[in-house]
């Protein structure tokens, strides 16, 4: 099925999913932490909008609740918490440009193509067009993973982790019409707890190595006092 046979609402959903993928790239390339947090908030808002559209075009009424939950949690609460953390860690002017931006972009684009290739057999078996969004959400997951590999700064790595979670949520919503409400509540709560724990860890890391650059943890060695 191609785009011409879709109702307008689902076309809008496809556009929003593509924009969520774009915010993933913005997150990956963004040098300044505060701007990256804003990009993450926009991604949360876009995922919430996709969820709301799925809810409106299908009979799953509980998806409205989950869209509101996503908007509140990933669009507002977690970005706000991260923002506060960054301000308290005095990192709000911190900027760390990528060393090889063109190479990283090409790697991320290769990941998009890879995830499309991976999803192709699944999509071919099904008739519902919106399952193509599964490829996009898998790409969001992989780009988030790439961000965790490339970035050395702890807060940026957490952003990559959270955007991976966004991608998984997008996949669940677009492929199966959402998870049961209990599971979604559990995941949302987990993400919130993870965020609080990350906050504690930031202070711990900084207290022990006086920086949030996790590459420096490789150089930690245990001093053995020879007798």
């Amino acid at each position, binding site marked *: 099925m191609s785009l*011409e046979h879709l109702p307008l609402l689902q076309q*809008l959903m*496809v*556009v929003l999913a*593509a924009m969520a993928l774009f915010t993933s790239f913005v997150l990956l390339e963004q040098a300044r932490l505060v701007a990256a947090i804003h990009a993450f908030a926009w991604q949360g808002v876009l995922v919430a909008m996709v969820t709301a559209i799925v809810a409106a075009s299908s009979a799953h009424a509980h998806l409205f609740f989950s869209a509101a939950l996503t908007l509140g949690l990933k669009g507002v609460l977690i970005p706000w918490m991260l923002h506060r953390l960054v301000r308290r860690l005095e990192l709000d002017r911190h900027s760390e440009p990528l060393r090889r931006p063109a190479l990283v972009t090409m790697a991320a684009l290769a990941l998009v193509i890879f995830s*499309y290739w991976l999803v192709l057999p699944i*999509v071919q078996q099904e008739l519902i067009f919106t399952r193509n969004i599964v*490829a996009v959400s898998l790409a969001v997951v992989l780009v988030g993973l790439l961000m965790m590999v490339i970035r050395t700064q702890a807060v940026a790595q957490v952003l990559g982790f959270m955007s991976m979670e966004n991608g998984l949520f997008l996949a669940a919503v677009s492929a199966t019409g959402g998870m049961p409400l209990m599971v979604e509540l559990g995941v949302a709560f987990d993400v919130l707890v993870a965020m609080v724990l990350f906050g504690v860890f930031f202070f711990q890391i900084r207290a022990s190595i006086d920086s949030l650059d996790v590459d420096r943890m490789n150089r930690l060695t245990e001093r053995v006092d020879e007798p």
Partner: protein
Amino acid sequence: MTVAAWGLALLQALLYVALAPLLAGWIRKVKARLQNRRGAVILQPYRDIYKLFGKEARMAHTASLLFRAAPYIVFTATWLAAAAVPLVATGLPTAAIADVIVIAGLLALARFFLALAGMDVGTAFGGMGASREMLVSALAEPAMLMAVFTLAMTAHSTNLVSVVDHQLASVDLLRPSYLFALAGLVLVAIAESGRIPVDNPATHLELTMIHEAMILEYSGRHLALMDWAAQLKLLLYGALVANVFFPWGIARDAGIGSLGLGLAVVIAKLALLGVALAVSETVLAKMRVFRVPAFLNLALLLALLGLLSHVILEVGA
């Protein structure tokens, strides 16, 4: 019939030349108002060109024949490229050469001679400007072609007229690939026509200038032609963005009514684009030259994402 059609095509090409300084003047006026200045009248670029044509064209002693010929080649190549882009009507005989690869080639030809002329006299500024222009264009061209290929894949043709027709036939479709291609093409257009985050068209007293550095040695009618060609290029990109992505109102037959409507609509669209450009130029600051590759990297990324989202999301398995 064919004579009338060719006449219309010629009229459209002349319209490009006639409108180009008006667009430049309009952008300057809006920008001046935004900066709380009164600004020169909108017709000022015409007066500048008229004045420059009346002045003597001075040459450096080291200038070769190339330096003398370059303004004519640059102007003609840019004009030919512009004449191929549909401005008011689509069903003209020039539609046969309205191929995006032809247009990119003609613009590359103009740029090649511009850069050669910049280096010809042998001043430091000319060589510097030429090398920067080549840096920008080498990075902008792949992004432009990728953005255009996104459209071509949707319309199954690289001809602009069929792209426009295809877009007119499917108005009720939201295409993510068009969104990305539009954003990519706008960034390329800003870089290629030397507008603010990349180059500042209002000054030639900066060390970071690109376009002005190349034409620093020109005077008189040569300078007028170079300026006119730059304004023509801006209008070309404006018409490309306005007519390919928002083609509504363009005349599809040769009736007086639809032609008149097409002209009015395209002028309104270009005026809106001019206001948008003036606002963005007022809000943004010029980038360092070494930041420009990152800017064009973003354009390429957007264009590639447009291509990929067309394949992934629009074609369907």
